């Protein structure tokens, strides 16, 4: 059991408001970890701290990619975090809407390719090859995520479920070892949710990507996750396997409440 992400004592304040309060959390290699909690509990803020969009006021975020040394990543710029192998999707979909599906995924390849201005102008053999590789790689990802039939569509014209999938496709194009999913099933119908379940499992089993996700769909969380963290008011109030969580009175009281009383 290798821990690949260790968050210690993470605290984030906005003005007088404490969004995260000394939060501790670990992600284990090869596992699907879920974070649940009521709206406004600080879950997305937590993601934003890990991915470098916010710089936390206190605490440490340590990332240890498989086979590499452990490193502190808080305070890094978002693009550096991605380059270190932690990719994410956004709760409110943020695709490049006037670019095609293929181009959206190709952007994800940016940090794993290197041709620069001179290369673009001269367009030598290596640049052409790199471009071709990017296209092929991106297309394979689209196949894997099940949206390859939409390859030449503009992102803005995609149905909702496909947009969520494209967000995932774009993120895994950066070849992460850890993928953060922010409410991947939001707005999906039951069939789409089921397909998403399969996709996430496949990403873990076939591509060795560990998953940390925020999700409100309890059925999905319970069926997918190996481990669950419950967050409320920026604090961790419980952690454990789905079975532990479902029977934990604190959790029931604080969050699951009416839904699970019956």
């Amino acid at each position, binding site marked *: 059991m290798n821990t690949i992400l260790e968050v210690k004592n993470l605290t984030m304040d906005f003005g007088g408001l404490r969004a995260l309060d000394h939060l501790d959390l670990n992600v284990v290699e090869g596992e699907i970890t879920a974070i649940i909690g009521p709206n406004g509990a600080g879950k997305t803020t937590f993601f934003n701290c890990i991915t470098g969009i*916010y710089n936390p006021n206190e605490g440490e975020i340590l990332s240890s990619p498989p086979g590499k040394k452990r490193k502190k990543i808080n305070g890094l710029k978002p693009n550096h975090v991605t380059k270190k192998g932690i990719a994410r999707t956004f709760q409110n979909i943020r695709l490049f809407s006037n670019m095609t599906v293929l181009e959206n995924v190709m952007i994800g390849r940016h940090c794993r390719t290197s041709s620069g201005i001179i290369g673009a102008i001269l367009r030598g053999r290596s640049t052409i090859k790199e471009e071709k590789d990017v296209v092929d790689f991106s297309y394979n990802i689209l196949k894997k995520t099940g949206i390859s039939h939409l390859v030449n569509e503009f992102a803005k014209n995609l149905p909702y479920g496909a947009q969520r999938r494209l967000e995932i496709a774009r993120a895994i194009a950066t070849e992460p070892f850890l993928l953060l999913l922010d409410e991947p099933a939001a707005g999906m119908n039951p069939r789409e949710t089921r397909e998403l379940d399969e996709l996430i499992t496949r990403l873990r089993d076939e591509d060795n990507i560990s998953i940390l996700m925020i999700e409100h769909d309890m059925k999905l969380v319970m069926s997918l996750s190996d481990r669950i963290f419950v967050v409320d008011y920026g604090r961790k109030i419980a952690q454990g396997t789905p079975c532990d969580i479902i029977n934990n009175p604190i959790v029931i009281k604080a969050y699951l409440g009416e839904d699970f009383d019956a």
Partner: protein
Amino acid sequence: MEYFLELVLGGLTRGSIYALIALGYTMVYGIIELINFAHGEIYMIGAFTALIFTSVLTLLGFNEIAVIVLASLLAVIYSSAYGYTVEKIVYKPLRHAPRLSPLISAIGMSIFLQNYVLLAQTSDFLPFPNLIPEFEFIKPYRYIISSPEIVILITTSTVMILLTFLIKFTRIGKAMRATAQDMNMAMLVGVNVNRVISITFVIGSALAALGGVLIASHVGQINFYIGFIAGIKAFTAAVLGGIGSIPGAVLGALILGLTESFATGYVSSDYEDVFAFGLLVLILIFRPAGILGRVTTKKV
């Protein structure tokens, strides 16, 4: 010591005029989050309107006081009308466009207005009559402060107090603050956002016109190009204080006025405008939120 005092008062005078123009930038920015690039031109048109009506009214045989009051009033009215029209042409049709669009169209409007005045009037510098009479009681202190400076300081502080009152306590002031906080929310609770934006432009333009009249009569000459430099300086003041913040604009303007006054008084006047630009670049690099502006964390 007297030279120092003279520089301080000169700087405060300058600064209080920058403040009048800077308020327009900061108020508009507070509401629509855009820099009104045509604002400097509104100020220039105010100065021109005042000059034109002063000459006409004098020739028509009005007495001195009537000329001052009427010309200033007309300048304020006309500038407000221009500000209103500029908003309707340049900003309103582009309210949902990408940010770059209103920016470019406002710059286009600024170039258009400059050349409109250049073509319809003249490219030469026109002498501007000194509207402000010499006060008797000021005579003994003349080497420190002049009558125009006193008038400018008193007028600007009165206007700023009135403005604060307007924004804090009136209905429209409340609507403006609500729109600045959250335009969509304000719309939902029944604020007529288009009207609020129009009124903001009108108030900002009126203040700029007042600044135009005061500075033109102080400096003694104007041409079609004065809005460009004044605009950038006032913008510097607004950013220095923290754009969107009304007390910030005033504070920033006074600091800029004093800086310029000392820099030209003790260093060199060749680079007068470079100081302002340099200051602007430095603030934007080191503290883009300004002195009184809050450093906000962008919500993602």
